[in-house]
């Protein structure tokens, strides 16, 4: 039973070699580990590896994707099974995602400083969003053209929701 696993952007092979109760021999690429692993709370694993005690907290999104927190680090981990591979193979060759401004968290549109068709310079602020009493200015990195404004002032927005579509400026 061999799988691929993606930790942040790195893909490794992962394979259970042997299991005896909660004692596990497991190989990640060619690195072999003997671990004592147990789920101590929902989503929290205690792992002993050569006596060293690790606490690992998992937050799963869907069946195969995890945010994994160790003491000092946080990893995005994805299990790559046959289905995922198939999906990935189909995906490659497609265009990149459309270019748009979005916010990482929910908030409220305070001010929109541009309208459709505007040309904006790199570094220029296009929208101000308020979340948790802080106002944040969202800027474009390069010179862009405003293709579409999807929200209006006062709107509440979700995290990662496209709010302004951007187009490339023809030189």
């Amino acid at each position, binding site marked *: 039973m061999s799988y691929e696993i993606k930790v942040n952007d790195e893909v490794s092979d992962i394979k259970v070699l042997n299991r005896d109760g909660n*004692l596990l021999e497991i190989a990640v690429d060619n690195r072999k580990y003997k671990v004592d692993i147990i789920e101590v*709370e929902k989503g929290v694993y205690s792992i002993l590896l050569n006596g060293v005690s690790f606490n690992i907290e998992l937050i799963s999104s869907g069946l195969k994707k995890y945010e994994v927190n160790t003491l000092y680090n946080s990893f995005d981990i994805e*299990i790559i099974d046959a289905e995922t591979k198939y999906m990935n193979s189909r995906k490659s060759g497609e265009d990149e995602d459309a270019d748009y401004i979005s916010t990482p968290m929910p908030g409220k549109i305070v001010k929109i400083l541009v309208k459709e068709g505007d040309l904006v310079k790199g570094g220029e602020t296009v929208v101000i969003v308020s979340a948790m009493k802080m106002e944040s200015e969202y800027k474009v990195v390069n010179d862009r053209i405003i293709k579409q404004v999807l929200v209006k002032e006062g709107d509440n927005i979700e995290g990662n929701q496209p709010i302004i579509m951007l187009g490339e400026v023809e030189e």
Partner: protein
Amino acid sequence: MIKKILIANRGEIAIRVMRSCREMGIKSVAVFSEADRTSMHVRFADEAYFIGPAVAAESYLVIDNIIDAAKKSGADAIHPGYGFLSENAEFSDRCKKEGIIFIGPSSYAINTMGDKITARKKMQTASVPVVPGTTKPISNLKEAIKTVKEVGLPVMIKASAGGGGKGMRMVEKEEDIVSSVTAAKSEAMASFGNDEVYVEKYINSPHHIEFQILCDNHGNGIHLFERECSVQRRHQKIVEETPSPIMTDEVREEMGKHAVAAAMAVNYSGAGTIEFIVDDNLNYYFLEMNTRLQVEHPITERVVGVDLVKEQIRIANNLPLELKQENLTQNGHAIEVRIYAEDPDNNFMPNPGTIKHITEPLGLGVRHDGYVYEGYEIPMYYDPMISKLIVWAPSREEAIDRMKRALYAYKITGIKTSIPFLHKIMDVPDFKNGRYNTHFIQDNAKYLNKKVEPNNKIKDVAAIAAFVNYLSTLDENVNDSSATALKSNWKNFGRKKSLNRF
């Protein structure tokens, strides 16, 4: 005597006030907005009343709604906490008019100190040193440019009604004056419903040191020593400690006297804080008075051994202060850090969300004042501070060690928090040596932005945990009839009690 107190606030401070109420045998009444029905302060209170929509301007800031709730509950006093209506003179007056005790100062004290410009004048009269700056609020942008040039760059633009870093902008270059004043005014309006701003000379290498004071209604006033609050990000305090590592006994005594004099100058009643800006040579200037309990009040409580909320309530009961200046001492060292729901790797962006799992730090010398719990969704409408961690130890060095231990043991998943960032602060040499000012964060970017590069082993351990969870979940989802053997294989993983060992 007060029998029932309505706490016109939410979050950790509402709960903190309720704890003291309970110890005094006083009933506590919570108020909540639509976003706060599941909030801990509602669950913790003896009673709770709904006061309006999520947006604070339509609930926590609506005086009528608060007064209604107080009447409904029969509360005989209102504690405003910090923020919201805590420094609202109209609210103080309204309570008085309604026959409800406002646990805080009179509208006169709030108005005088709340308007920074009036306060400056008052302090000058009371011989308390003040920072050079404008004597009246800025009414238009043209005037702003003129005034700033008079005071001389760099300057700070500050909201007259302000506090907590909101509506505050530093201006270094002439071309930024207009945009900064505009931004400060807009934030001031949004936060305080008042867009008056004023200008102050910017002090180089400034330390932010404040004094806790208590005044009763019988002419007694004392200070409970200083708090060093120079570790700030965007003018927002994130680490506070007491005693201040730069303070001397002589300056402390002198500043304490000035702090009490400042409060007395406005016939202050209750707990308040006199903020000073202090330079490297311990020259100090009155900055402002916060006419309420401060976020960082617990470090004073720990080192002086006083429950400040109980003192507020006693004063509101018209009792004379039992504490005497000559009996108060600073015992050991206390540090507080503020835990925010924010992403330190992404420009400290607020990061609301749902708490998946929380492990609170406990044990010797650790106090934790929070309000979130597992499954709680932090609303996006309010301040992103989720808790405060306060440690005490006999020495500053041991207190830092203890704070690192507490931060190590403090785990919150589901949201990003400032915990890793605070942990790094404790390791910065300037902090360890106690040699820092309000530029600490930018001056120490090289320490604070450093990432701990994970090694292969920790990456693999993380991968193994995720993989085992994936296999267990797979088994759970397998249809019973088709593969019972496989199912039991992983599902009960780790539930066996007797194990073979390697």
